[in-house]
């Protein structure tokens, strides 16, 4: 669609409907959602794949397992027969959906099955952490921006403290500390090794990146005529916040969701790669890359496969985020960029 052919906009439609319609017309959203849908589907069928197709337990070491390929029984971890006969190499991709479709890792586990289970953890932690970030950021941004004054100062300084640390440095530090001891905050107790820990950590470290723009937006909205009118008419604070301000902040929040999802997923993968995220024998894409690191020379697929999935998912989420942003942006719609 060219600039000279603006999108048809029916002024009587609600902004939400317009955004959805714009999004539906955007090829980027379809491509990204298709990829994300496939990945999500693969994650959901992980237990079925492991038990009914691959017939394997992806969390159990099976170093002495064997597999029959074309009538030939082969060890899953094959000893070398060349030269000095040193070393053991995991079986490579068999290309058969039955078992070891992508080969085995150095514990004799089915890489494909672990990849699917890894998707569950990575996506779940990424989505949950993004949700934690968004909800807490929204709360902080709304309170700080609306109340201003002392409350704003305190909350803003708290955000500054978190902001002062690079995201990964703070995530790693918190993970190292909490990994062995777990977390106890009042009635909340999270045990060591729980996947709730990376959710909490990642959810916290990204708050300033979302809360500050929201606060800025709320500060601006606070001065708008319709908010002043509501204040002047004696509306309650909660009514003003939830009926006047929040609906105007939500588009920004919606844009943040896929982006934060992607960032949280990447951070989770990084932490798990460093052995301070998802703990073995559980899998995440980061832990599988870590497992594959020792097999880069002989079985690179173990590290490459989760790496590829991380790239695809992050790219899709960002692409979708762009589409959402454009769909919610009246200026873009008016230009007909999409």
């Amino acid at each position, binding site marked *: 669609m060219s600039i000279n052919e603006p999108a048809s906009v029916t002024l009587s439609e609600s902004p939400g409907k317009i955004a959805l319609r714009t999004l539906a017309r955007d090829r980027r959203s379809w491509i990204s959602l298709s990829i994300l849908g496939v990945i999500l589907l693969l994650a959901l069928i992980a237990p079925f794949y492991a038990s009914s197709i691959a017939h394997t337990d992806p969390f159990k070491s099976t170093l*002495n397992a064997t597999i029959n390929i074309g009538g030939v029984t082969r060890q899953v971890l094959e*000893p070398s027969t060349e*030269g000095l006969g040193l*070393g053991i190499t995991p079986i490579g991709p068999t290309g058969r959906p039955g078992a070891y479709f992508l080969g085995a890792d150095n514990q004799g586990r089915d890489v494909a099955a672990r990849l699917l289970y890894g998707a569950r953890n990575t996506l779940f932690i990424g989505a949950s952490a993004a949700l934690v970030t968004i909800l807490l950021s929204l709360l902080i941004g709304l309170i700080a921006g609306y109340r201003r004054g002392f409350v704003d100062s305190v909350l803003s300084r708290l955000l500054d403290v978190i902001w002062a640390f690079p995201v990964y440095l703070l995530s790693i530090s918190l993970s190292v500390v909490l990994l062995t001891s777990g977390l106890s905050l009042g009635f909340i107790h999270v045990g060591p*090794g729980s996947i709730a820990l990376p959710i909490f950590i990642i959810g916290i470290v990204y708050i300033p990146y979302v809360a500050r723009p929201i606060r800025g937006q709320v500060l601006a909205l606070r001065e708008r005529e319709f908010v002043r009118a509501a204040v002047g008419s004696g509306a309650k604070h909660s009514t003003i916040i939830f009926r006047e301000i929040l609906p105007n902040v939500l588009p920004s929040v919606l844009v943040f969701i896929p982006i934060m999802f992607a960032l949280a997923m990447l951070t989770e993968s990084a932490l798990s790669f460093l052995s301070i995220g998802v703990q073995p*024998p559980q899998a995440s894409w980061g832990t599988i890359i870590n497992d594959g690191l020792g097999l880069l020379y002989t079985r690179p697929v173990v590290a490459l496969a989760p790496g590829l999935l991380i790239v695809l998912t992050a790219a899709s989420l960002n692409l979708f985020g762009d589409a959402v942003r454009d769909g919610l942006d009246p200026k873009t719609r008016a230009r007909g960029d999409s």
Partner: protein
Amino acid sequence: MRKRPLILASVLAVATLLLSACSGSNNSASTSTGGSSFGAYEKDKAGGIVTFVASAAGGTLDPKVNYTAQYWQLYQASYDGLLGFKYADDAGSFEIVPNLAEALPEVSNDGKTLTFKLRKGIKFSDGSDVTVNDVKASFERIFKVLSPTAGGFYNGIVGADVCLKAPATCKLDQGVVVDAATNSVVLNLVAADETIQSKLAVPHAAINPASAPAKDAGTTIIPTTGPYMYKSYDPNKELIMVRNPYFKEWSHDAQPQGYPDEIHFKFGLTATAQVTAVQNDQANWMFDPIPSDRLNEIGTKYADQVHIQPLTAMWYLPMNVNLAPFNNVKARQAVNYALDRAAMVKIFGGEKLAAPVCSFLPPGFPGHVDYCQYTAGGSVESPASAWTAPDIEMAKKLVEESGTKGQKVGIVVSDDEVNKQMGEYIQSVLTEIGYKATLKPISGNIQFTYIQNTNNKVQISLSQWYQDYPAASDFLYILLSCGSFTPGSDSSINMAGYCNKALDVKMQKAMTLGLTDPAAANKMWGDIDKEVMADAPVAVAFTPKQVDFISKGTKNYHFSKQYKMFVSQLQVK
């Protein structure tokens, strides 16, 4: 000795040593020169810098405290005791020769008194003379710094019992009697000890200046007597050794002049990066086990740079007998039954590099008996002759019977690739038999001392033991006697915290018997081995072989069964 953190392992009978030496030559891609000492020093081949690489440092540099093969290998070229192990290949390296002493000791008083004469003219690397006062201070320092072998090796010195109770004020006036006028040192023992000369030849008995700190020196450098001294030590980066300007060769057998001008030990490289560094001639030798991913490559493309050496050593899992769930013997036996030793051998690199075992004394060691209680078809009452397969069902049954099913178990391993893989496997096994197992990989720099300290409440860990000297007591007595267990200490080599007083008495008897009837003593050690393993304070996994991968430009490789590769004899010029 542990491989990374340090050593102390066991002993090999001379006949066995010779036998394994022969088999070692067959298995090795290297050429062995037999048990004789090296040829004359070739001055034209001296010079250059030898570079070693490792994933982590070996901890404290203090020779009285460090107990890792990683640094004992270096101490061999820097610190000296009154006695030493001969610079010779294979089994010849177990021969004890006079080092700072002029000759082997005169033994009198029914083996309870050893008289040495200190060589004259030897200086420390700071230029000060080595005196008999330094000798006495060095023996007292063993106790003052809480050396990990203070209670296991040197508790037989007269006065040691008091020193063990009050280390800070340790005085061995009766135990180590010196005479500056005659340069003599008289070592008085409470009782004769068949292995005392071996114990005097290891680095914990090295002679340090009397001014050395009365605590673990850590990264502080203590002057040396050997051909090399330490120039700098940063455990996060590098250890640099340079020539000791005051060194003059006094015994070619005990401490020959070294070839390289400097020895650099760089830390922080992954095992894979170490392999690549050696392949590219950026390093001369790598310390860590070669990752299984690279073994095939170096076994085919770099076979002429690979040296495979049999070892008297073991990889094993100490289980804390004072902490749940392993304070229950059935839980410990369950782990022994469940462990698939063949699987662990695979992780280590395959059958060419290791062999499954489940007796405490390694095959070929004095006192070793071919038996396995914890294998399919075996039992404590009726052991099989060798390990064949795990018995998971028996393990599950024992866990049920012990009432420990479902309990949490933390496994502490070093964080290098091979140890982590082993840890993941152990976690899988413990989960399978009914525990909630978690893996705790920690830096190899601290893992060895961490798992010794009871304050860290380690339930089960993975460790290695390499012999210190050839005697069964070096495995059984050192690792599992009451004297080797010091709660709350980083130097408590009895990691299982196992203390069986009745067995302690038997071990003492076996050591005494060894003075007069070694064959009967070895039989007794074999029986003790079985009794210990019936209690299962540890699960022995396999006995490894050493794989030394050296760069193409590195010459004059020699291997000692005692200290492994002779670092000072490598030639790079």
